[in-house]
Each structure stands twice: as structure tokens, then as C-alpha cells.
């Protein structure tokens, strides 16, 4: 048949984008943060990441092959990204078996029962992270102190900056890491969230590749900044300053890499802005008044549940109607 006459329905222009390409961009964007955490926490980071990614892919394959009996989709890379993000959300000294359980929860509870990629209501990595946080409260909140790879201090554990903030009645910035430390990653925490600069590098790459848009991260971070700023202005001895809130904890990782997950975030720009603002508001409420020191994962999960509603509220108007 003549190739020239072979016309398909519109759209005729294809951007060349595919699930695989998008997932590859996300993996590339996560690399700087990975390198920084290997630098600070050493070998365990590599082991945990490999276990997490390997188990996510393996479980997805097994479930699709033997339980759902459908062609497997592990080659699209979404399980790899879930595994990476899950690993980035745990302390570097987590026991390996907990990582395996986390991967099973991410794929076996949060992703495949809903129908796999594109159908999951909640971000699988975050579901698994919250599952582990509630199930293993001790292991998930024992943070190793970051030390450059040549220092032999891997047995020392210490609190996260937000943990210190929650424990003490007043803010004593003397106890806190300096801002330079927060930027490069010299602070306690889950191993993917420590370095602001590395995460921002990855985020810029994603924005440049147009995998994510600015709406969610900017409104998320801005909301956190504004609300922590208001409380800081009310009483600087009681509440930490807004720069501190933006740079600590999982905010940057969550805002750029997890709230922007295409499946579990709204589709229109205005809905994205509301989504991000909601995440920010819940995060700051949990951080300032909640029982947990950190609220990014809870806030994103709660707003994930709102996505179908947001999509309905902010439905674009049909042209000329």
C-alpha cells in the first residue's frame, strides 16, 4: 500500500515523548542526589537503592505474570522510578528486609491492585514510605549522621533538623546545621532528601526536559514559605524561620519529584496550583502542630486523594461555549 495515502486521525504531530523517556529523565534527575548521599552515607545507600529498585521491578513482574496474567510493563521504567524514590525516603541504615517489605507495599498494595501505572490513586513510593513509618517507627526515624565517605563514623545516629525543632520548646538556631550544610546535604535525614543543591539540579533538568511544570513545586514551596514566615513573624523564638523550613526535611524532594508524579497530580495548571498550595498547607500544619516532625509525605498523599475533585472543579471551558 502506498505510504502517502496512509493517513491516520489527528493529532498528527507526535512529540516523540514516551513513558520510557519520561522515566529515564526522572532517573537522570535523581542521580545528583544519589551521588551526594553515597558521598555522605557510603555503601549502604547503594545496597538499599539496588534492593529497592530490584524488588519493585521483580514484584511488578511477578504480579503481572502470575496473578494478573497480562503482558508485563516493567520495561516502561515506572517501577524503577518508584524503587528509587522509595529508597530516597528511608534512613541509610534501614535493615534490608524492611526495604523489601516497602517495595512489596509500593507495588503490591499501592500500584497493581488499582490497575498498574496510570490507574494508581496514590503515589506508590509515598504509600510505602508512610506504611514503613507507621509500621517500623524506630527504624524509620533513626538517622545516621552524614559524614564524608572517608570518615569512619557510620555507627553514629543523630536527629534530623526538624526532629530537633519538634523536641525543643524554643528555636535555638545554634543547635541547627548551618545553611551551607543544608544546601550541600550535611544534615540528618532520609538519604535522598539531604542535599538541596543536588535536588535543585535534578529539578532544573526535569523542568528543562518539560517532564514537570513549575506550578506544583512553586506553589507547594511558596505556601510553606509564606505560612512558616507568618508564624516566624508572630514569634521568632517559637517558630523556625521560613528558609529553614524550605531547606530541611523532604520538602524539595517531595515538591519536585513526588507531588509532580503525572499519575497522581491534577492535569490543569490552576488545579496544579491549588494542589501544591494544599500540600504546602498540610505540610506546615503537621510540622508546626502535628505529632510528626515532618509532614511532606502525608500532605502529598492527602492531596492525591483530592486530585479527582480538583480535576473536576478546574475543568477547562470548551472554546466558544
Amino acid at each position: 500500500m502506498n505510504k502517502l495515502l496512509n493517513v491516520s486521525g489527528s493529532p498528527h504531530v507526535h512529540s516523540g515523548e514516551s513513558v520510557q523517556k519520561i522515566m529515564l529523565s526522572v532517573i537522570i534527575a535523581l542521580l545528583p542526589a544519589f551521588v551526594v548521599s553515597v558521598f555522605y552515607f557510603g555503601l549502604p545507600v547503594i545496597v538499599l537503592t539496588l534492593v529497592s529498585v530490584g524488588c519493585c521491578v521483580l514484584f511488578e513482574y511477578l504480579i503481572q505474570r502470575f496473578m494478573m496474567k497480562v503482558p508485563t510493563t516493567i520495561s516502561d521504567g515506572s517501577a524503577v522510578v518508584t524503587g528509587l524514590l522509595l529508597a530516597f525516603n528511608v534512613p541509610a541504615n534501614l535493615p534490608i528486609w524492611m526495604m523489601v517489605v516497602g517495595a512489596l507495599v509500593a507495588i503490591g498494595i499501592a500500584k497493581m491492585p488499582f490497575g498498574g501505572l496510570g490507574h494508581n490513586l496514590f503515589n506508590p513510593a509515598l504509600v510505602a514510605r508512610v506504611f514503613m513509618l507507621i509500621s517500623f517507627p524506630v527504624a524509620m526515624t533513626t538517622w545516621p549522621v552524614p559524614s564524608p565517605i572517608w570518615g569512619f563514623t557510620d555507627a553514629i545516629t543523630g536527629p534530623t533538623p526538624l526532629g530537633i525543632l519538634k523536641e525543643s520548646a524554643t528555636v535555638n538556631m545554634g543547635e541547627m546545621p548551618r545553611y551551607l550544610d543544608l544546601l550541600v546535604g550535611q544534615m540528618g535525614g532520609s538519604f535522598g532528601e539531604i542535599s538541596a543543591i543536588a535536588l535543585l539540579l535534578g529539578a532544573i533538568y526535569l523542568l528543562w526536559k518539560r517532564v514537570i511544570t513549575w506550578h506544583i513545586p512553586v506553589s507547594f514551596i511558596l505556601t510553606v514559605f509564606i505560612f512558616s514566615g507568618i508564624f516566624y513573624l508572630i514569634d521568632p523564638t517559637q517558630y523556625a524561620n521560613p528558609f529553614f523550613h524550605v531547606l530541611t526535611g523532604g520538602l524539595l524532594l517531595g515538591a519536585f519529584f513526588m507531588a509532580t508524579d503525572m499519575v497522581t497530580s491534577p492535569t490543569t495548571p490552576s488545579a496544579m496550583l491549588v494542589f501544591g498550595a494544599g500540600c504546602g498547607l498540610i505540610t506546615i500544619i503537621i510540622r508546626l502542630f502535628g505529632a510528626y516532625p515532618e509532614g511532606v509525605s502525608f500532605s502529598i498523599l492527602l492531596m492525591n486523594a483530592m486530585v479527582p475533585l480538583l480535576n473536576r472543579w478546574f475543568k477547562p471551558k470548551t472554546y466558544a461555549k
Partner: protein
Amino acid sequence: MSKLKILTKGFFKENPSLILVLGTCPTLAVTTSVNNALGMGAATTFVLLMSNILISMLKNVIPDKIRIPCFIVIIATFVSMIDLIIQGFLPALSASLGVFIPLIVVNCIVLGRAEAFASKNPVFDSFLDGLGMGIGFTISLVLIAAVREVLGAGSFLGFTFVPSDYNMLLFVLAPGAFIVYGFVMAAVRQILNNVEAKRKAKQATA
């Protein structure tokens, strides 16, 4: 419907909490341990049995317009009885089940069987129906509780066999109840479908 079918349909095929999705509140709340599940199942079975029998006996006397209040009064009587019995003889169980024993009064399974079965059928059939539904409810509670107790507390019927470092606390908390309920429901339905498909295939070849 044969007498045996009336009894056994409640076990799996019309299981009140896994297939009919009735009585979800106690199903989610008391399945933290197998002991609680057995206690709750037994108490509910007793109430179902007695209220089914009595309502079936009185079905021609109860005026149609006020039948629901009448059913509730009968059910509440038996719930008060079982509540006092458990408080008197099993204080530990009473403490761990707490308010969920008195709440059997408003359990949809009990009222549902009264309305859907006992008020239309003879006494013996109602007795079998109540017994079957009660056993089915107990089966579903024990299934869910077994998963939650083993994963969440590392024990079964109170015997601990997994060190507490390896427990997954989430499963004994409320979210774990929803997750396990969903998975047990899916598994039981899948098995029933498979059985049904096999039976049909057999009929087709025969």
C-alpha cells in the same frame, strides 16, 4: 432451596461481610486479634440465631408498619443478654471488645436477616439461616484477624512466635484493617469465581 443450602449459603457464597458487605464496622474494628474475632463472631451468631427464631415465630403478629422497631426491640433484648453474659463470665473479652458488643443491636447483618429472611420464612429455616450467617460472619472475622494478628503483632490466638522487631504495626491499626479487608475480600471472591467456573465447565462437558 434445600435445608443444607440455607445453612451453608452464609459460609461463603452469601458471606455477610465479604460478599454482602454488611457489618463492616465490627469487621474493621474487632479484627485486631483472632481471640477478639472469635468472641465477636460467637456473640453475633448467638444474637442472629435467637432473633431469627423469635422474629420468625412472631412474623404473623408483628404489624407490617412498625416491624423495624419490633425487630430492634427483639434484637436488643438478646444483645443485652449476651452483653451481660460476657461481662459476667469473660471480663477480659468484654474489656477488649468494649462498646462493640452493645453495638450488635445496630449490626446490619442481624437486622438484614430479620427483614430479608426471618420475617418471611418458617422457624426452622430461619434458625438455619441465622446459624449459617453467624458462622459465615465468624469465618470472615477470623480470616481477617488471622492476617492482621500474624503480620501486625507476630502472634496467633495470643501465642507470640515472631519477635517484636519484625512486626508491622500498621496492620493492627485502622488503615491495616481496610487494606486486609480489601485483600481478603478479593481473594475469597476470586476463589469463589474459580470454583464456579470449574463447576460450569464440568456441567458443560457432562
